[in-house]
């Protein structure tokens, strides 16, 4: 960061300070404008906020949140299992296992998640499978995130230094043992930040359930916002919901960053080789 500019001298310091004040004023102006706009359109009126005091409404919000967490939790477990199975298949020595697994992983990563959910949602309607929107959300999330996790697992195992694998084979371990006893334990600590980041993505994507009428947080918010007797409090409701989503996801993101810092520190202490280019590429790949 500091490489981009010299340590500021007196003139640069002054200029930066002036710019600093200008930017702060601009941001304050923007915030003030938004607040003014909200106030002018009556978004802070008590009739638009009063419903959040009622326990029935609070319970409704809580139910929405629980539905979100339920779908995310189940999908996370299933996606981990799917990721482990397909990662194992992708590093298999048998071509007839490896090729189909690669195909499946690549396919589900390329299809938009909403379309995956539509397959279960409309499929259930058409063939009367009796799958509720909950299962459409869970299966959609599982297929997509399971494929992404399979890639993360595979890349993590591949990033373990080659010598580890060669040494293990040299002392006569079988492939199963090499992966299970030597590669996986080392790979997992390196993969953990990427896995947690992917869980943030999964949690955010439960909001897609809104579109296929799954009663998660955003869906509940839409219902609350559409109430005439409280003056259509869309903005108050979305502010509340946004705080919940951002709070939850930020906590998970913080965990990911903490894990990343920890594994980096550990690498420094043990004097292990710096992260390879492949690892850098996967960590630079922004999870969406």
């Amino acid at each position: 960061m500091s490489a981009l500019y010299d340590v500021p001298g007196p003139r640069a310091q002054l200029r930066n300070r002036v710019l600093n004040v200008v930017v702060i004023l601009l941001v304050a102006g923007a915030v003030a404008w938004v607040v003014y706009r909200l106030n002018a359109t009556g978004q802070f009126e008590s009739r638009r906020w009063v419903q959040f005091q009622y326990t029935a409404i609070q319970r409704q919000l809580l139910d929405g949140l629980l539905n979100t967490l339920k779908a995310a939790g189940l999908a996370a477990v299933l996606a981990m299992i799917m990721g482990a199975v397909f990662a194992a298949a992708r590093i298999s020595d048998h071509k007839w296992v490896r090729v189909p697994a690669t195909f499946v992983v690549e396919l589900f990563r390329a299809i938009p998640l909403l379309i995956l959910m539509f397959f279960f949602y409309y499929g259930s309607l058409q063939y009367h499978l009796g799958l509720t929107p909950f299962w459409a959300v869970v299966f959609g999330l599982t297929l997509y995130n399971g494929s992404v996790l399979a890639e993360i697992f595979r890349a993590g195992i591949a990033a373990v230094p080659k010598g580890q694998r060669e040494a293990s084979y040299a002392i006569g371990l079988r492939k199963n043992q090499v992966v299970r006893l030597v590669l996986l334990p080392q790979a997992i600590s390196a993969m953990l930040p990427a896995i947690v980041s992917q869980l943030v993505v999964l949690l955010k994507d439960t909001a897609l359930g809104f579109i296929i009428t799954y009663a998660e947080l955003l869906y509940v918010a839409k219902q609350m916002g559409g109430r005439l007797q409280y003056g259509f409090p869309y903005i108050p409701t979305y502010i509340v919901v946004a705080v919940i989503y951002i709070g939850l996801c930020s906590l998970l993101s913080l965990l990911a960053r903490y894990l990343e810092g920890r594994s980096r520190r550990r690498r420094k202490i043990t004097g292990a080789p710096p992260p390879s280019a492949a690892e850098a590429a996967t960590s630079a790949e922004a999870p969406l």
Partner: protein
Amino acid sequence: MFSVLTDNWDLFGQGFWTTIKLFLISGVLSLVLGTLLGTFRVSPVPALRGVGTGYVNILRNTPLTLVFAFLVFGAPKMNIELPSFFWSAVVALTIYTSAFICEVVRSGINTIPPGQTEAGRAIGMSFIQVLSVIVLPQAFRAIQPPLMSVLIALLKNTTIAAGFSVAEAGAIPAAMAERGENQMLTLVWITIGFLILIVPLIFLQRWAERRTAVA
């Protein structure tokens, strides 16, 4: 199987055309906004860094569907009217995607060896000059692969607009339900349509990856 596609060619054609328009317009806008935010995050002015960091941290932890919902249902309540649902979708996608592009740009800037910028400064270039003439051109080469991933994700994310009254490819199933067509076949064709759009992007990404790996 084919009649589902050929009988409803109008729906599929228009749907995917809208998807492509959404992708291209919000792609260009997010590249511009994301790069700007990326430079904010490395600037010598603390307030600018704060703006960049705050923006990224908030948007990256917000579901895109919530951004959509806020713009479509919330914004009109504070008298902010966008010309159409299409433009609401463009704004939502741009706001969301630029946070990810910002992160990619920032990590790209950090990959440039310090010697490059030091040399630039040694011959008397300003921060803006160092950034625009020396750092960003090199950074853009290094970040092509992750940038492509973000753009691929953007293309897939355009389907969310279907939930907010934009008649793009993701909205085809609902329209087909009204026409009484086979839903599963419709979805298969939509999947094929998306694969046709995405697979070239994936190959482009792999190609860029190989090229930057050598360099």
